[in-house]
């Protein structure tokens, strides 16, 4: 392989961004995905950051947090957190990214607390804006380290809602997870809101993905290998994160 797993995930995430999308960007890999999309197929995408920043151009330098200086300089607008979250609640945000410690069969996410192998509770940082993005964006994409214990049949604490009865009516009907991009595969969701294997990354197999998932994972008849990053995508990624802080 002439690219890293993180680079593959970034390129895969970038392809979820459509041109003109209003994207709740998040940090780490999704941030770089936004940079890739802006520089390739989605030049008109607008980035929304929950600290109050809107951007129509990516920051010139690599960001470690969304509030780093380069993300403010030349921003489209600097507002309050409430005003950015309001765009979500209005339904104006077409896509949101978020990470999680656990994702279940219906795309529900837990980033609040998990149990370690001995059964002891491990406290995680919590929702941040993840719950808001999951509940209110038109589509959301989660990123996950693919390990069996991170993909349980049902998370015991829903930090960020996937599919469930709350998507049957009302405001949340408009949203839900579009994809889960793991370190092994891309999962998508059936009309009934159940995850299925959409593609497996180069170097892994359908069997490996299924064996490392905590429920009997449905496999799409069209399941194929995840498309590797293009040269252009890799160029943008390496130009933006030359030391590979997030993508090595």
């Amino acid at each position, binding site marked *: 392989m002439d690219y890293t797993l993180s680079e593959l995930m970034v390129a895969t995430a970038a392809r979820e961004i459509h041109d003109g999308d209003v994207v709740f960007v998040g940090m780490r890999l999704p941030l770089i995905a936004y940079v890739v999309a802006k520089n390739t197929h989605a030049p008109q995408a607008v980035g929304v950051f*929950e600290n109050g920043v809107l951007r129509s151009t990516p920051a010139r330098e690599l960001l470690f947090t969304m509030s780093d200086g380069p993300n403010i300089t030349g921003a489209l607008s600097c507002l309050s957190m409430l005003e950015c979250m309001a765009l979500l609640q209005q339904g104006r945000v077409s896509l949101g990214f978020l990470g999680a410690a656990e994702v279940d069969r219906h795309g529900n996410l837990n980033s609040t607390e998990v149990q370690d192998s001995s059964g002891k509770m491990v406290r*995680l940082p919590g929702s941040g804006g993840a719950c808001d993005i999951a509940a209110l964006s038109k589509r959301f994409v989660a990123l996950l380290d693919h390990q069996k214990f991170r993909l349980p049949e049902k998370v015991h604490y829903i930090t960020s809602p996937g599919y469930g009865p709350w998507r049957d009516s009302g405001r949340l009907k408009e949203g839900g997870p579009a994809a889960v991009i793991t370190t092994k595969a891309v999962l998508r969701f059936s009309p009934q809101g159940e995850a299925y294997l959409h593609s497996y990354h180069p170097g892994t197999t359908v069997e490996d993905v299924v064996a490392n998932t905590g429920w009997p994972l449905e496999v799409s008849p069209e399941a194929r290998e995840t498309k590797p990053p293009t040269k252009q995508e890799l160029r943008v990624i390496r130009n933006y994160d030359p030391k590979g802080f997030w993508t090595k």
Partner: protein
Amino acid sequence: MAKKSQTEKLCSLEEAISRFVPDGVSVAMGLQLESMIPFAAGHEIIRQDKRDLTLIGPISDILFDQIIGAGCAKKVVAAWVGNVMMGSAYNFRRAIEDGIPRCLEIADHTNFTIALALHAAALGVPFLPTYTAGGSSLFSRNHGLAEFEAPFTGEKMGAVRAISPDVTIVQAQRADAFGNAHVWGNLGASPDAARAAKHVIVVAEEIVEPKVIASDPNRTVIPGFLVSAIAEVPFGAHPSPVQGFYNRDNECYREYHKATKTRQEFETWLHDWVTGVKDRKEFLQRLGEDRVNSLKVRKHAWSARADFGN
């Protein structure tokens, strides 16, 4: 409140914390997410050994972790507690998981619900309605969130209870001696948290003449008549960045992550950087002139002027 309108409120950070952060109060800090976090104020709280504080803020990056580790907090009302760049906040974990150095209560919010809670208080209403968090587990454990039936539409919505901090600590780029403060860049929940609070402490990079502040009233997001104390503390937000003044000290977050994995290591860190240090000036000396200088703004980017004339 009213009596303080245009009286001078300039004092040392030590005095501001001593007067307006008594034991047992709720303190909102770190309202702008990863930038302009009032670390100097937090360290002064630790040095003065405040007890039983309730910490309020969306994320706070590692500031809440330090205050928790120092044993000053009994409760955290937040959406996220960790180290944004590095992941876990170990003191927070030790407190929640094992009650070290003391048990910690937590009210889990989302960034939006905490912004709404402060906005409700700033608006003077007991709650605000929202659709966020629908389907999540948050409602089951946080008594500041409830479901109710909305008027007009009859639909089921979430209600977020107002939060009025006893004191909000706001970091500002510049302010006058009356507390009128200019803040720019991402505002986060800072303006609402200031208006929601009973007392406001402003920590400014520089105190300027009132005419500088008055020249741009749209930049004055914190009006002085709501402010109880104002302290001038250059580099008061380090290691978080202040737009136009200095950049983020990423190395500091890395070091903190490494240096706080065990309780013992944290105690050493705390002595080296907080309790064994007199004030922010001494902190900066310890950090070293080269490192401090390396963080300063390299390329200025001045705002286009606006004419407030008539």
